[in-house]
């Protein structure tokens, strides 16, 4: 199990400070939710954790080792996988091929020029297993462009899991999903809980309280509170930050 520790992270865009001395502590095997009003800078933070964006200052420790200067590819191959808030899959490929790409990324071997991937068991079988796990086995051979939004979000998760990561950064996995679909996703995440250390960015409060071991609240790029879901629910600063937004009190 892997821990992720973020300290003093800063990111500025011209005059705007998107990440303001941010601190985050993810314990091994826990689901750590990250909540906050729109514009708080959550996706920017995820981009910095995945390596797609370089912070101006601060440190990111993966199991105690500094990785803040590591490029995206290194992080992907060494345990960090992320999913995207705006679905980022390969629309011309089938669902199976999408997950196979994830599997291939994890086991390397991009410079194989002769063997067709469709007959490569080491890619096909793990991919099918993952599709079964997220409930997409029956659309494995359908082109992703023909899949509905909810199915694509599930595929998004499957690709992320295909990397066999130690830490998963999930950026609003339930974005745009119906109530039914969200519940299925929650069940899925509950099933994989404990296997990875997960940072879960979400607006869906039911999901957050059902899944999270701990919650960090992010407002204007800062972490204003961190604790168990119950502690956060009753935290005065959190209540005021959410005034006018979603109801935090149950």
């Amino acid at each position, binding site marked *: 199990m892997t821990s992720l520790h973020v300290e003093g992270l800063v990111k500025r865009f011209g005059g705007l400070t998107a990440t303001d001395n941010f601190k985050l502590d993810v314990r091994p095997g826990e689901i750590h939710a990250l909540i906050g009003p729109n514009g708080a800078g959550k996706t920017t933070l995820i981009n910095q954790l*995945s390596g*797609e964006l370089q912070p101006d200052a601060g440190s990111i420790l993966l199991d105690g080792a500094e990785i803040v200067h590591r490029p*995206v*590819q290194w992080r*992907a*191959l060494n345990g960090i*996988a*992320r999913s*995207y808030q705006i679905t*980022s*899959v*390969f*629309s*011309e*490929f*089938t669902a*199976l*091929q999408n997950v*196979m*790409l*994830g599997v*291939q*990324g*994890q086991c*390397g*071997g*991009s*410079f*194989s*020029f*002769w*063997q*067709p*991937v*469709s007959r*490569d068991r080491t890619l096909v079988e793990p991919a099918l297993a993952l599709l079964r796990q997220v409930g997409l086995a029956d659309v*494995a*051979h*359908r*082109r992703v462009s*023909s899949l509905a939004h909810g199915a694509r979000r599930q595929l998004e998760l499957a*690709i992320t899991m295909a*990397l066999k990561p130690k830490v998963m950064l999930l950026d609003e996995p339930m974005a745009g999903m119906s109530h039914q679909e969200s519940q299925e996703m929650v069940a899925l995440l509950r099933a994989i809980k404990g296997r990875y250390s997960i940072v879960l960015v979400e607006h869906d409060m039911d999901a957050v309280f059902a899944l999270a071991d701990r919650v960090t609240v992010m407002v204007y790029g800062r972490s204003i509170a961190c604790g168990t879901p119950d502690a956060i629910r009753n935290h005065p600063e959190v209540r005021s930050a959410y005034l006018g937004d979603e109801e935090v009190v149950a």
Partner: protein
Amino acid sequence: MVDTTLTPAASAAHAAAAGAARWRPAPHLCVAGLLLAGLALVPLFSLWLGQSFYVTLVSRIMILALAAVGLNLVMGYGALVSFGHALYIGVGAYVVGILSFHGIANGWVHLAVALVGGGALAALVGLVCLRAQGVAFIMITLAFAQMFYFLAVSLKAYGGDDGFAIAARSDFGVVDLNNSVTLYYVIFAALAGTLFCLHRLVHARFGMVLQGCRSNERRMRALGFPTGQVKLTAYVISALVCVLAGMLLANLTRFVSPSYMHWLLSGDLVVIVVLGGLGTLLGPVVGAVLWLVMEEALSSFHLTGGPLDELVRTHWLGVAGFVALVVALALKHGVYGALVARFEGRSS
């Protein structure tokens, strides 16, 4: 029962559907088969007509098709629009020419030098060009090809702007390329062989990564893929195919000139790929046939018997430009590509 010329996605989709439905012959596969069979039979047809002209013409078509197939690897499967691929045709031709000029007529030496030298050059040029993103990549490939064109023109010892003739064709020992029919089948074999190898490549891990980069490069990086290396490798492979085409061209025409790497030829290659079908294996071949047949038809235009004929014959390049314009504005999938797309639409 995996289809050979569909995109990998359609292959997979089709393979799955095929289990459920009765197997129907895909129309584009029939076209592909007929095309290849037709190409194989041209020398016999030419012999029957007593006209060697067709052997030469179709040899040229196949060489250009080969180069376009190479370009299609990076442009169709990799979404890297190179407007300077004729450079490598020139490289292949000049290697044959210069070595012959200095008395080295052994075809195997020609091949080795061309592939190694061309590969090294492509790696270097590719490395620089790939630093540029998006539209800058297109511009820089055009600029670099132009640079080498000027270099070729400045080689006064090798004819400069006019180019120079080659005394004899490459000597491969086992085949006599001086026989035009033999040369024809060597070119055909090169084209068919390349198509087969690229078919394997596109469906293998490398091909999937390349297409993934075309589809969503950001995600590919986040999945840990070495996207820069893959794109460079694809660029070098596509360049080598063009080098091969250049070697064959020099052998066919027994002539080498800077015009083989002129940017107009690079543009022709781009039109051919799009006209035939971007991202389909046989599209470029169909495109080459259509484009060169059109060129021949226009430059010997004799339809109305009036002054219009003369106009078209002299200014056929303008008509070709108009066709290119229409292709760019109106053609969505290319001629062959449209067939493939319709079939894929039905099966998924």
